């Protein structure tokens, strides 16, 4: 029987040895070695998480507490199924991103270490059981994300995006820490399980509201909640392709999951307060993200702005706070992760092949890179919410959860936004179809022979296939993922002390 402690040990041990592979890759002229290492890390962690998840099956709620030292004082991890769900999504995206970069040649020095650190940070945030552990892994996740963004192809722009991201998210993390200090002053512990017991007793005071505000402010930067989202479009559009795919797919959502866990577990007693705050913020997020996406001509900025809209949907479901709404949030995170990751992975090579990120340039590159063109088309139709893709099911689950709650008016706002988002996504789809299906002129045909470096590699193709098939499979047969998400929601609510 494998000890669940390996869930923590293995990623951290792999992070410690990661620099060796990076250095070896650069010294021995093996540019693929760091990518192969990150692929191995994600596969090994996925296998380990699978074994532990299977050993937890059947229990309800399935909690496994990994505590070190005296309760309330020592560090603590909580293995529950919502965290495992998030961890699996992160591992899946890390795997496809590594597969993609395997066929894209050498990376910037340090890329392998930073990518492994990003993955380890996300796994830690998903499993953290006390506020100090959460903060430590949060910083690991954020610091490696800034470094990865700074490695973008156009260095000047990437550095600027990384700087904005760094200043905003670091200040946010520290503000969250001050919130943790107030919680500590109120309760005398940072352990989430003990805090859940305390907040049920109803310790509502000005200090508690202050702490709540600091947590929403601090974690809201990483989760891109309006008005703290301004770093997001820059960072997503300037980061290297596999990094945008990972950060857009799961890192921001992991920030949202951290906030969700704190709100549901620690601030359950003052739920009515944060529900009102989030109800306002979620509408701002939805309208801002989707309307800005509607007018973008740059494919990466379009995808980035629509991510802000997605955060708005997730916040709307968080306001509702019923088991079905939390299930819809987890499902949304998974569905958004696979399709957004697919969109970024396919838009990257198309844009670098065409020399431009304009929608019209991408539409014309059908003859140059057919696999990437098809993958981008599938990802965009999925985000637009076409039936038989996961994007349709995600919106259906969310809307049905919101409409069956007292916050039904948020559902109306969301319907309006789903329509705006569909318009924002069908615009690039139509541009691509119109320009791609038009027979290319003869001089274009002769000019468009793929160069050696431009050809779609095997790893790239595999990444497209895995994500594309998942998008279709989850859209046609969503019940396995929906069941896992429902189990996760059940565990989250039981952490917060009953329904």
């Amino acid at each position, binding site marked *: 029987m494998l000890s669940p402690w390996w869930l923590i040990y293995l990623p951290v041990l792999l992070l410690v040895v990661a620099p060796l592979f990076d250095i070896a890759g650069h010294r021995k002229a093996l540019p693929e070695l760091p990518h192969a290492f990150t692929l191995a890390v994600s596969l090994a962690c996925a296998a380990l998480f699978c074994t532990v998840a299977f050993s937890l099956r059947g229990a309800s709620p399935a909690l496994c507490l990994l505590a070190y030292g005296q309760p309330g004082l020592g560090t603590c991890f909580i293995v529950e199924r919502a965290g495992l769900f998030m961890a699996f999504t992160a591992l899946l995206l890390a795997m496809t991103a590594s597969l993609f970069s395997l066929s894209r040649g050498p990376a910037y020095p340090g890329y392998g270490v930073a990518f492994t650190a990003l993955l380890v940070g996300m796994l830690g945030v998903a499993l953290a059981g006390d506020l100090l552990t959460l903060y430590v892994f949060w910083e690991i996740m954020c610091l490696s994300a800034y470094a990865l963004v700074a490695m973008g192809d156009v260095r*000047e722009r990437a550095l600027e995006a990384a*700087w904005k991201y760094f200043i905003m998210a670091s200040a946010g993390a520290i503000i969250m820490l*001050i919130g943790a200090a107030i919680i*500590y002053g109120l309760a*005398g512990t940072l352990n989430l399980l003990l805090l859940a017991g305390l907040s049920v007793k109803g310790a509502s005071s000005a200090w508690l509201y202050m702490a709540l505000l600091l947590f929403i402010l601090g974690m809201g930067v990483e989760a891109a909640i309006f008005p703290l989202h301004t770093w997001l479009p820059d960072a997503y559009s300037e980061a290297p392709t596999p990094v945008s795919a990972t950060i857009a797919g799961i890192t921001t959502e992991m920030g949202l999951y951290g906030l969700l866990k704190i709100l549901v577990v620690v601030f359950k007693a003052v739920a009515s307060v944060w529900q009102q705050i989030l109800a306002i913020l979620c509408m701002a997020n939805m309208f801002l993200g989707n309307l800005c996406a509607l007018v973008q001509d740059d494919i990466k900025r379009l995808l980035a702005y629509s991510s802000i809209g997605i955060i708005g949907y997730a916040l709307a479901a968080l306001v509702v706070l019923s088991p079905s709404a939390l299930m819809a949030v987890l499902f949304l995170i998974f569905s958004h992760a696979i399709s957004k990751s697919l969109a970024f992975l396919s838009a990257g090579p198309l844009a670098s092949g065409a020399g431009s990120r304009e929608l019209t340039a991408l539409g014309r590159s059908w003859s140059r890179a057919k696999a990437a063109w098809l993958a981008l088309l599938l990802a965009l139709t999925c985000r637009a919410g076409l039936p038989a893709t996961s994007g349709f099911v995600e919106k259906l689950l969310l809307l049905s959860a919101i409409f069956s709650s007292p916050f039904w008016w948020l559902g109306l706002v969301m319907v309006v936004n789903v329509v705006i988002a569909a318009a924002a996504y069908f615009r690039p789809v139509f541009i691509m179809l119109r320009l791609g299906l038009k027979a290319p002129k003869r001089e274009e045909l002769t000019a468009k022979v793929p160069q050696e470096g431009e050809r779609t590699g095997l790893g790239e193709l595999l990444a497209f296939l895995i994500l594309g098939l998942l998008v279709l499979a989850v859209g046609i047969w969503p019940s396995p993922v929906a069941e896992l998400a429902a189990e996760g929601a059940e565990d989250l609510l039981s952490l917060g002390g009953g329904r």
Partner: protein
Amino acid sequence: MMEGELLLAVSLALLALGLYGLAAKRNLVRLIIALEILVNAACLCFTAMSVMAGRGLSDPLVCVLIIIVLAIGGCIAAFGLALALAIYKRLGTLDAWELDKLRG
């Protein structure tokens, strides 16, 4: 009891100072210094809370936390300085307001 309130007041003053620095300063290095002031404010806030809750200055959780948080603060400063250096080498400026190429 007065000790706790005094510590809290200093911590809040540092918080205000750090936030002011982040909002008003243009030099990248000064912005990193403002971040470090915020880290110290958070650490001091933990001490103040521990004293005000009657656990004194030597609460083990707070001591451990402050050591770890200061180490992370060091990482933040190191990363920020590396980024500022790269920006200076590439763009030839340390002025945050000149980083305005990304819009829209």
